[in-house]
């Protein structure tokens, strides 16, 4: 700790002289009558549609088609060498021709030489077309999904919730989280959205139903 801690806190307390001494934070009512989700359509279809709105590439497959879908996606991308977390399931890559490099502490330059990265996710939100990574199973550390220009993400049907309020209880704030809604983009030029800036410029999602 450094700086003017006591001074700032004293000023804040002085500024709040009008707040009755007996008032607890919970005494300030917060109405929570907003919806947990918005009934905007069947969850998986909605998730796929919203991702496509962001110009992400989306595939839906039964579990037995996953390896083939991953293989086709990587081939179409021309990805010869992709990174993956150490605990990403082997069978995802069973049919892939690409070399899969497991992340055992690749340095930044090493990551920068990868043609892409393949991960799972922790939670997905249908209404907003969002994938949340928490560094858990098959996801790896944050740099893994940041430096390569292409991110292929495998989302299981049971990981998709409808609305944002349903996602937060499934996530631990103690872990570093990355919420991803489409490829990197900017609206800084005339407030017109353009996909592809510093983060992965291509996001491809495989939904396993």
């Amino acid at each position: 700790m450094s700086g003017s801690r006591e001074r700032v806190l004293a000023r804040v307390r002085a500024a709040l002289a009008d707040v009755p001494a007996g008032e607890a934070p919970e005494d300030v009512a917060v109405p929570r009558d907003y919806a947990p989700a918005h009934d905007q359509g069947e969850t998986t279809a909605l998730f796929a549609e919203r991702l496509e709105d962001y110009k992400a590439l989306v595939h839906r497959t039964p579990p037995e088609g996953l390896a083939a879908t991953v293989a086709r996606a990587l081939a179409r991308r021309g990805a010869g060498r992709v990174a993956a977390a150490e605990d990403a399931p082997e069978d995802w890559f069973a049919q892939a021709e690409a070399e899969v490099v497991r992340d055992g502490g690749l340095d930044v330059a090493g990551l920068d030489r990868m043609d892409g990265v393949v991960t799972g996710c922790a939670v997905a939100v249908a209404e907003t077309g969002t994938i949340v990574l928490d560094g858990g199973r098959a996801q790896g550390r944050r740099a893994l999904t940041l430096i390569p220009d292409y991110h292929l993400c495998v989302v299981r049907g049971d990981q998709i919730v409808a609305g944002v309020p349903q996602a937060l209880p499934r996530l631990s704030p103690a872990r570093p989280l990355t919420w991803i809604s489409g490829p990197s983009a900017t609206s800084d030029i005339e407030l017109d959205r353009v996909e592809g800036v510093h983060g992965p410029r291509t996001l491809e999602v495989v939904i396993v139903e």
Partner: protein
Amino acid sequence: MSPDHSSPGAGHAAQDRAAGHATFLGMLPFPEAAERAVGDSQLRHNLRMATRTIRHKREEVVGELDDWSALRAAGKAVKDRTLRHLDTYLERLEAAVTAAGGRVHWAADAAEANEIVTGLVRATGETDVVKVKSMATQEIELNEALAQAGIIAYETDLAELIVQLSDDLPSHILVPAIHRNRAEIREIFRDRMAAWGVAAPEGLGDDPRALAEAARVHLRERFLRSRVAISGANFAVADTGTMVVLESEGNGRMCLTLPQTLISVVGIEKVVPTWSDLEVFLQLLPRSSTGERMNPYTSTWTGVAPGDGPQEFHLVLLDNGRSDVLADEVGRQALRCIRCSACLNICPVYERTGGHAYGSVYPGPIGAILTPQLRGTASAQEASLPYASSLCGACYEVCPVAIDIPEVLVHLREEVAASPGHRAEKAAMGAAGWVLGGERRLGAAQRAASAARSVVPRRMPGPASAWTDTRDIPEIPEESFRAWWRREGAAEPAPGADPAEPGRSGGDEEGGRR
């Protein structure tokens, strides 16, 4: 334009660029600045295009949520709860961040914050830092302070990069370079990028895709090797010590993930009580801000995570006038602001004047109430801001945390008017009250005005000239409405009194409300 725009050749070190920053200090009061701005047709065109686009997008995605008003009420209430018990939540936040391996610093004002950050960067031995777009660090002019200490801060948000490269000032909360169009941005990239690092590619066009690509190439190398980053935060969760940054481009992720040391400068009003409170703000903010269902990237982190991201994290809690705002029971609500900029995009005044006229990093309606409260209204510039509005109320309508901006504007106008130096206006208002207060006096004044209409000047003389500098004196009619009514109105029945038009009149008076 700043004087050092000539010869941006390789001889100019980036450090020289960083030292010659534009500043909001000593800006003109709003009326003068606005008069200049509305005369700039290019600026007006750029702003009209951009604000129209974003207004439309916002309306669409807000319309998708049938519980928007409930979310808005919750957002307002969560912020009110936090503000009324801010000391409790700040201490809670400090404890949680510390427990998670972060260090918390407290800054009473801009100078102290700059000193803390400068000291932290110096301790790393680095002289370059990368920055995530942050209003708080703009407010305290951190880049200038770092430059004084020989540390160069590289802005990495595309719009901030445009502003930094052109030695300009931000003019919008979300899109600081909103006043620039694609052709201007291309010129800036072509002329200025080389002095700051990787040059713009040969033959760069003005397609936004090409411009975004140029920014990617320009910053890529710097992201991969920078060891210190500085950010702000959109939210800081008191219970868990979690910081939240919303962004689009991935520059935020780069800065928050790759460097060894991360320093976040966060206003004390950014606290929210609990993790689950984010379920409200993660819906309100992106839809109000960029008009998206969700922004491309949101990063959250709690202290340090072994093996993932920066291993040293500092949180600098910034007061810098916020406790003064908190002390004003009417003005306090301005601290609910989540910096979405919806009020700028909807504001008819902002659309015409742009952001620079407000003389602050916080422009538009929210700036008109925040800046005078943060800085006080002693100078003409700040005292003019509460008047930089037509009080149409559109800003309040779109505000996701229901800040009643017109209410605060009127409150601040009272404050300004009660201060010495506003005697002329008070005298004029007093006289008007006397004239309007008596029917005979009003009639006499109107007849006198009608008789004198050909000789009324376009501009008022003396102290009243301040009023007509920015307004046209309305044309005085040949005959007042009251005189016309006495002459014509009494001859025929008023339409509202026609018994053949049921419901047009009488209902409320006779039968009560239906």
